[in-house]
């Protein structure tokens, strides 16, 4: 089932055309990653799907009654605004104390309810943002560079958590990223963006596409080879052998 579909998106910010003729869809339960160089319109695409930036052309359709969870790139809380984790999680919809406790435990942050938001580390903040998205019981989670600012173990742990969430709740995940190798391993499908969709498909297909190589060079092949090796053993897709 298609949850979100974008057809022929055109977005201009100021005088700058950012996206042209972008088509994208997100189906139930899949993890899709948008990769692309800086300024390729990745975040803008996500914001267009959420209805934050106006479209100059094309349209976004959502499944009726779709619940979307959004995890922004970062949260810059003004230091004059006192807010603890539990209060933040109940914005704008109040959730029961039990739901909040369970969701925080789900993302590996038990008992942080009364901690001030401003005192959290980068990794904890990403988990809190994910918890807030999960509390809405979303069918689709949209994330903008969720692992930015995390170290490598933190990054790996975050993607493991995402995988668990997907298998527990069946939620689809659409995320923007530019750390290629880890993302490739964690995704079902990769969309390579550079103002338009250059190529898309399974990580394996995309990494071999000439458009992708033109953008990212050959440097990532080592990591991707490792990924394929790893993946072949677990998923045994015959065409990879």
């Amino acid at each position, binding site marked *: 089932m298609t949850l979100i579909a974008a057809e022929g998106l055109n977005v201009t910010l*100021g005088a700058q055309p950012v996206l042209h003729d972008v088509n994208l869809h997100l189906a139930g339960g899949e993890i899709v990653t948008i990769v692309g160089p800086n300024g390729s319109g990745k975040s803008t695409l996500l*914001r267009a799907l*959420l*209805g*934050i930036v106006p479209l100059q052309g094309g349209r976004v359709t959502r499944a009726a009654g779709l619940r*979307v*969870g*959004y995890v*922004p790139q970062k*949260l*810059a*809380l*003004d230091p*004059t*605004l*006192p*807010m*603890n984790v539990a*209060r*933040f999680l109940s*914005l*704008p*919809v109040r959730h029961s104390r039990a739901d909040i406790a369970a969701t925080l435990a789900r993302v590996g942050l038990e008992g942080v309810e009364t901690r*001030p938001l401003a005192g959290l580390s980068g990794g904890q903040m990403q988990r809190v943002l994910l918890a*807030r998205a999960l509390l809405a019981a979303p069918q689709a989670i*949209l994330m903008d560079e969720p692992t930015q600012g995390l170290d490598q173990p933190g990054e790996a742990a975050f993607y493991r958590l995402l995988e668990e969430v997907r298998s527990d709740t069946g939620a689809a995940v659409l995320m923007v990223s530019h750390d290629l190798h880890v993302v490739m391993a964690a995704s079902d499908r990769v969309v390579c963006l550079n103002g338009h969709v250059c190529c898309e498909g399974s990580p394996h297909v995309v990494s071999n596409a000439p458009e992708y190589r033109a953008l990212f060079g050959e440097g990532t092949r080592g990591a991707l080879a490792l990924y394929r090796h790893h993946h072949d053993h677990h998923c045994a897709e015959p065409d990879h052998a």
Partner: protein
Amino acid sequence: MLDDFLTRAAIAGVGVSLATGPLGVFVVWRRMAYFGDATAHAAILGVAMALATDLPIALGAAVVAAAMGLTVATLTGRGWAADTVLGVLAHSALALGLVGISFVGTVRISLESFLFGDILAVSRTDLAMIWGGAVVVLAAVVWRWNRLLLSTVNEDLAYASGISPLRERLALTLALALVVALSLKIVGALLISALLIIPAAAARALSRGPEAMAVGATLIGAVSALAGLWASYHFDTPAGPSIVTAAAGIFIIAAVAGRLRRT
């Protein structure tokens, strides 16, 4: 009881703080201090226009303050530097207002009362207007509280939750214009921002949550009004500036207390 000018002044001061407290915290969180100043200065232009057209002064002040707020929001939304826009518009409106008042003003107009307030001269009608307006602003902020708060925390999260941060900003701008019109009589155009910012800043040092900070700002605003009036009566000082001085005193005490509690 309302026959006593000091009692009326006290009731007016407490009434205004019902609106300046909950609105002031947003001014602080959203860094709208200069925006508040600009709206307040524009009110002087509104006063001049009201005098020229024989309309109620509070109405003129509210309308021009709202127009200023909307103009600033529109221009900064189009990429103008907020600093410059505020600097140009706020001071132009203030200067134009002063020039205008000098044209239409006669003996009955004391310019000083618009610049620094005249709380000791509030009438029963003023009281009704102040309390009516303050209750409207308070009710609006309470009603939209979660939407305003999430829009302040992060606009994209608000959008994703189906809230329009633009609409919330508009609500704040209009509420601010109303508060400016109400407070003009209390502390005057030059010190209205102080009434919004100082109690909220004082409450920050003592609060662990946004709601506590809003309630704290309201209480501190009310206490400042009463303490300022008391001082004004006993030391024969101007009432509006005395209220702001009292608020500043509470801010210092709260900042020190907050620091001590943390260590």
